[in-house]
């Protein structure tokens, strides 16, 4: 039963990500395609990352382990939002102090490029403070080890 549910989720996500995206590119005017396609991509990516985050994390750890770069620290896969050189959304693997990693809900990234010089800031964000009070807050002691993202 669980397996069937996973298959259904996978099919819905695929349809949202690529069916919707391709459909808007084929049949909708560019101005409209940006809005609908963008929303579909953001929703699809968030759904994929939230549903399969654990599996993606395991896959990345195995992949890096085969190259003698195995991660033994606390790791987790969360959504990432990048702005600066275009807007991107995707998945990021965060690594750091296990206690702090548990609080990370997303990563915010800012990309800047001037000539040949480029800069990137990666900020792991917790939507809930460790104290239990609400609000957005940056998480110390946690960084990013891998990113995959799509252009919006």
């Amino acid at each position: 039963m669980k397996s069937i549910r996973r298959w259904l989720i996978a099919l819905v996500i695929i349809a949202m990500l690529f069916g919707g995206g391709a459909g808007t590119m084929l049949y909708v005017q560019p101005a409209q395609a940006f809005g609908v396609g963008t929303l579909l991509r953001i929703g699809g990516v968030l759904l994929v990352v939230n549903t399969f985050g654990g599996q993606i994390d395991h896959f990345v750890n195995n992949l890096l382990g085969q190259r003698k770069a195995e991660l033994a620290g606390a790791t987790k896969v969360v959504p990432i939002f990048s702005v600066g050189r275009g807007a991107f959304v995707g998945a990021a693997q965060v690594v750091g102090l296990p206690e702090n990693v548990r609080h990370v809900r997303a990563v915010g990234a800012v990309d800047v490029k001037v000539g040949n010089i480029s800069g990137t800031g990666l900020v792991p964000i917790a939507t809930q403070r460790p104290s239990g009070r609400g609000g957005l807050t940056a998480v110390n002691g946690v960084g990013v080890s891998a990113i995959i993202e799509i252009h919006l």
Partner: protein
Amino acid sequence: MRRFRGLAVLSVACIAALVFFAAHPQPVAERSSGWPEWQNPGTKLVPIVALGTPGVQLGLAQVTGPRERLDDVKVVLQVEADFQRSVRARVFVPSREFVGLNRVQGVAVSALLQYGLFRF
């Protein structure tokens, strides 16, 4: 036409990945045992060498993690891939050695400043 070919390849790759993950569910909790409960987060600046689709870049990276691990980090190696400007992937490996992948566990990157040496 090229755009749709890229989209088709990406779709097939994503379908394969989703089928793989759906068929092989792995509980996250199984990895939680054996992790050291590191304390005292800190940051450090180290050189970064990036190789990938855009070319070769050199610069500085701020790494963050447990203080007892930060001293071991000598360099960060970055592998970057950009697929027709629609999908991009980056992997950061904080390493003990300038040559080779000798990863320092529990440490990752929080900021980068890079200079593009040349493009492929």
